[in-house]
């Protein structure tokens, strides 16, 4: 199964609920297009909920980084929510914990956007 993405609006924050796998191919391109679409529509506060993501490979990690850079370059913020242990491990190994702001609880994550 590839990734399924659902967008919810919580105040002025777009919460992107991801379910499945973000891996090279369909999974990573779906994610990329969805984030680009959000930015094109003027959504600059994006919270990516990874609670239901079972698998991310290096290509998926690259898409998260690319989304982060694109949103930041447009004057916005992209943060991550609810990482499972495997995704946390990936961020530790790649040192991306120093790049991404990661939250455990949605309410606090939404309130953290400025």
């Amino acid at each position, binding site marked *: 199964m590839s990734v399924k993405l659902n967008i919810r609006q919580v105040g002025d924050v777009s919460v992107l609920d991801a379910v499945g796998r973000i*891996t*090279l*191919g369909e999974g990573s391109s779906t994610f990329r297009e969805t984030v680009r679409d959000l930015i094109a529509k003027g959504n600059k506060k994006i919270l990516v909920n990874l609670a239901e993501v079972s698998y991310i*490979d*290096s*290509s998926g*990690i*690259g*898409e998260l*980084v*690319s989304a*982060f*850079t694109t949103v930041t370059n447009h004057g916005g913020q992209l943060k991550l929510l609810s990482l499972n242990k*495997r995704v946390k491990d*990936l961020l530790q*190994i*790649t*040192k*991306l914990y*120093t*790049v991404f702001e990661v939250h455990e609880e949605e309410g606090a994550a939404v309130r953290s956007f400025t």
Partner: protein
Amino acid sequence: MPDHSSGSATRVERLLASNLDSVDIGEGLVLEVALKAGLEEDERHRLGMAVRESLVNAVVHGNRYDARKKVFLSVSANRDRLTVTVGDEGEGFDPSALPDPLAEENLLRQSGRGLLLIQAFVDEFEVRRREPVGTQVLLVKRLAPA
């Protein structure tokens, strides 16, 4: 391609096409052997990721999706270790010449983390020239004694 199983030793070899379907097929094959060898779930996941990244490298960077070229996968397990080799027919590469993905200036690069993850997820990792052409990577996962 052969599939030898005898007693506690297993060896499986496959020739795979240079496309992304082969990545899923190869990862699945290695995970089956790892399950039978008794590797626990988290370690199977880590091995699976290392194999996936190696197969992606072989298909995308090595063979460049060339339908005339093949990816060579072998997996073997004995009591102590599970060994995977992934070969391609590409031009080869020098791992030491690749940018360090952990360097501050490279953290925001979109790609270049595959080898880092492979090395993190297996106990031994080696890149070799494959004869007559291409690259072969060797991945080893040590198995805990039963």
